[in-house]
């Protein structure tokens, strides 16, 4: 059963609201960052590798054209 009389009581938590919501809020931010940061880093790593491979392809093509 819902423990609070209304939404205001739920937010204020009998005066403990800032402590409770602050704890949950900061934890949510940190845990969201923990999960999303590696995904972003992986994308950056793969993009950089892709660019490096493309640059290498172009260089090799350039050498071949000079040779002919």
């Amino acid at each position: 059963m819902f423990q609070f009389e209304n939404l205001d009581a739920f937010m204020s938590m009998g005066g403990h609201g800032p402590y409770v919501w602050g704890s949950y809020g900061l934890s949510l931010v940190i845990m969201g960052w923990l999960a999303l940061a590696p995904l972003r880093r992986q994308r950056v790593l793969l993009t950089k590798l892709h660019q490096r491979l493309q640059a290498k392809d172009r260089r090799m093509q350039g050498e071949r054209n000079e040779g002919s």
Partner: protein
Amino acid sequence: MWQWFHKLGSPRWFYQISGKFLPWLALASVVLIVTGAVWGLAFAPEDARQGNSFRIIYIHVPASFLALAGYYVMAAAGAVGMIWKIKLADMVMVAAAPLGAALTFIALFTGAVWGKPTWGTYWIWDARITSMLVLLFLYIGIIALSHSFSTRESSARACAILALVGTVNIPIIYKSVDWWHTLHQPATIKLSGAPSMHPDMFKPLLVMILGFYCFYVLVLLLNTRTEVLLREGRTNWVKDLAQPK
């Protein structure tokens, strides 16, 4: 057996297999943590002595559990990497450090915020809190150490040794509430005997702990996959990943 061991240590095999688990782990973490948080915040009964501030327990205890369990994971991975020279184990060790540090920070932060309305102070140098702070410094030390060597081998060995020496701290954290008289309350959940908590309060906590375990495994896999991509960039299979189809 040895072939299996060898396969398990292969970064490519790990990358492929772990990719299949990620969506399920993500789903399980979100469902369990959202359920546990809503249950704990809105539906669990209020604590007779601490009022609503006790609802912080649903973050504080799971985060502390995983901060400690995560240290074992990191130290064990370091030991395996050092003894059998398995590269993947070294990557797991490096992946576990920032995750453990973040969870230790959450445990300390929520503990401090919980302490204010309950004990009247955010911080006190008591045994449990101080040993948790030492745990945070151990994690940070390992992160710093892993960046301060030019070769991967010496970095891995130094981190593994620090991680193994640091395990001394873990039983101190567990036992601190029994060995010293502190403000921190004794363990709510014990392996032997019933939890010292009403079932209506305990059930959401159990859901949260399960959710945090799933979340831990999820982020550990994600971080390890990042390390794999970082270190195996010269191999053909990673180059294939980088080529858009």
